[in-house]
């Protein structure tokens, strides 16, 4: 018998999913129950992780009421809880959850673009503007329906309904999709009064390249490469999350050494990105010394990755069943030595940042996201932690080896650019500390086991990447191949927080605010 449970005294019985390395619960709910559960979870201070849609019409063709499904994943104290809402085959619809979880809005618009299910609300106006679709394929072409054929359509110009701010002297500044620097594409529409930002609205989705449709029909082992390329700077977290899902489906647990090596790579990825951002943030306030110094350290870091693991960004090192490359004793010694060097260098640079009046002047109070606002918006990850939101899977639901590592979560209550820099400094230090712990506790043994796919299974993977938690859900079909794979980037939740952080700042400060968030475009665009 599998374990069952109910949460918030509501009559939904969840079943604990076997084979997962963190507690994962699933249950089915109707529209009213789903809404009620989300409200209760929100009241209890819990949060939305992800929501996505699936086409199930081929599963039970004679039961039209179960034609489609909406999946809503929540972070509960007891673990990951995934609710499934069956939807009608002809007119799929689901309750608009954006009034409860603001970040649900864009996720729902993506669900609508991908499978054609409508969010509905009797109380509030629902945002039905397309999100991932930019007029480049017809509104009735739903890429994630199984009977949608491959097709290609001529590219078009989109007219998008930006929200307009009226008033004397209010003007719009439109930026993107192509920005001034070497940066991913997105569109920012500022409504400004003089230099002051009154409102920022983002239009994203430019990089949508059909990843979820691409997954369909792939072998379980093959999908890891694609998952590792959803957001390249987070490749370790995605590959690990994907592998967790694949291993849950196959019912295998990788050797302990592989798990410890995965954590080593995850912390190395976190440090690489923090080194890059600490330099980039200084550069955006014209302190290019910071960029030069930190980009030098980052390059040292990446070169050791290449030498010991064969790839500068560690792509394809984590594979379902374990890890692709082992670490020698001399390699481990080099890693420790590098940790010492980097720690020394970063300490010296932090002292310079702390003392630099010009930099502090630009960092302090800029791009302020108050803790209360962050809580309302469901801000997570590093940006959330800099606004006093203490989410971190490494502590909240630690899978091995984090259950033995006692990660200290870095937080700050100021919520400005300076706080986000300080949290990065603190996390960098903590990750260096974790790497030493990992290397001293590393078990010996195999680094890989066989992963054989099983038909008709669903698996979840959930990893605290450097930006926040990455969720991967994999479903296999009758043939054991991937039937649906949904990869959720933490940036989904934090993009809306950036809109708020920009308010009341001057337009020229936006680059450093944006850099201090450093969100992924590729990840949510899919």
């Amino acid at each position, binding site marked *: 018998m599998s374990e069952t449970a109910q949460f918030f005294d509501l009559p939904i019985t969840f079943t604990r999913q076997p084979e997962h390395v963190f507690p994962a619960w699933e249950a089915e709910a109707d529209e009213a129950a789903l809404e009620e559960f989300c409200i209760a979870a929100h009241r209890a201070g819990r949060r939305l992780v992800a929501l996505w849609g699936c086409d199930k019409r081929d599963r039970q063709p004679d039961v039209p009421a179960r034609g489609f499904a909406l999946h809503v994943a929540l972070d509960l104290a007891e673990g990951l809880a995934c609710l499934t809402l069956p939807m009608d085959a002809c007119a799929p619809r689901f309750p608009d959850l954006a009034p409860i979880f603001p970040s649900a809005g864009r996720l729902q618009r993506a669900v609508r673009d991908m499978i054609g299910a409508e969010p509905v609300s009797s109380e509030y106006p629902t945002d039905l503007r397309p999100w991932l679709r930019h007029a480049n394929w017809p509104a009735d072409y739903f890429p994630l329906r199984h009977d949608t054929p491959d097709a290609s359509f001529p590219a078009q110009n989109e007219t998008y309904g930006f929200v307009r701010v009226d008033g004397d002297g209010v003007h719009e500044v439109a930026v993107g999709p192509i920005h001034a620097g070497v940066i991913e594409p997105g569109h920012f529409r500022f409504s400004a009064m003089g230099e002051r930002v009154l409102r920022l609205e983002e239009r994203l989705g430019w*990089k949508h390249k059909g990843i979820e449709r*691409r997954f369909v029909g792939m072998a379980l082992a093959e999908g890891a490469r694609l998952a590792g390329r959803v957001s390249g700077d987070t490749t370790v977290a995605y590959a690990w999350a994907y592998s967790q899902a694949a291993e849950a489906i196959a019912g295998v647990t990788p050797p302990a050494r592989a798990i410890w090596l995965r954590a080593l790579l995850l912390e190395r990825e976190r440090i690489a990105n923090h080194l890059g951002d600490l330099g980039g943030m200084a550069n955006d306030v014209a302190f290019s*010394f910071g960029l030069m110094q930190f980009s*030098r350290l980052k390059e040292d870091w990446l070169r050791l990755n*290449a030498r010991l693991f064969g790839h500068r960004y560690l792509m394809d090192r984590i594979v379902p069943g374990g890890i692709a490359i082992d670490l020698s004793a001399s390699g481990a010694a080099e890693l420790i030595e590098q940790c010492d060097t980097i720690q020394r260098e970063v300490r010296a640079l932090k002292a310079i940042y702390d003392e630099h009046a010009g930099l502090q002047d630009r960092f302090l109070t800029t791009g302020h996201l108050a803790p209360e606002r962050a809580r309302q918006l469901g801000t997570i990850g590093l940006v959330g932690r800099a606004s006093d939101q203490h989410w971190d899977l490494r502590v909240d639901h630690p899978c091995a080896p984090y259950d033995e590592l006692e990660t200290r979560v870095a937080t700050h209550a100021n919520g400005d650019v300076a706080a986000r820099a300080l949290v990065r400094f603190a996390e960098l230090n903590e990750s260096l500390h974790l790497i030493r712990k990992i290397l001293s506790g590393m078990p010996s043994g195999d680094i890989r086991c066989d992963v054989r796919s099983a038909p008709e299974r669903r698996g979840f993977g959930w990893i605290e990447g450097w930006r926040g938690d990455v969720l991967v859900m994999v479903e296999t079909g009758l043939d054991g191949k991937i039937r649906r794979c949904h990869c959720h980037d933490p940036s989904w939740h934090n993009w809306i927080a950036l809109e708020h952080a920009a308010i009341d700042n001057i337009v020229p400060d936006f680059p450093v605010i944006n850099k201090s968030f450093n969100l992924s475009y*590729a990840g949510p665009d899919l």
Partner: protein
Amino acid sequence: MIPILRQIFRTGIVSEPLPPADEALRAATQRLSAAITEHLGRALVIRHVDAGSCNACELEIHALGNPYYNIEAAGIKFAASPRHADMLLVTGPVAKNMEVALKRAYDAMPEPKLVVAAGDCGCTGGIFGESYACCGRVANVLPVDVSIPGCPPTPLQLIEGILAAISPGTTLSTSRSIDRSTMSAPGSNG
């Protein structure tokens, strides 16, 4: 100020010599005549456009500016406006949603213009291929002079490709040494 100067002093100059152009990366037709490339010399201005990458290719382009590769010292810089650019450096497969913007950036560039497709995705469409949402390789949308494979291509591979696009095919008009044997191994990315 003193700690900053001390740090700069302590760090010293870490820049390494540039690798030579990799002529093999050049597409069959080189559209620039030798005379023009000679004229351009090494004062090259690049406009980068991410047409749909996974964002790792951008990380390596950023790395070109770090003190080790120090690409600006070689006279190569990145511009904000395509109107100031000699070369369009495109990463990623071309997402359908970026097709119009990419073509506009290309059209805005003055003649003669070069296009370099960076990364396996830019070269072939890579793992993302062609679909309702994706045009595949850059050459499906723009004429490409040089394709640089790699996932992502390392900074060295990027430099080799960028230089291939502007080299007249003979010896480089460079004052910097092109001896690679002195470089510490930056490793490969598959």
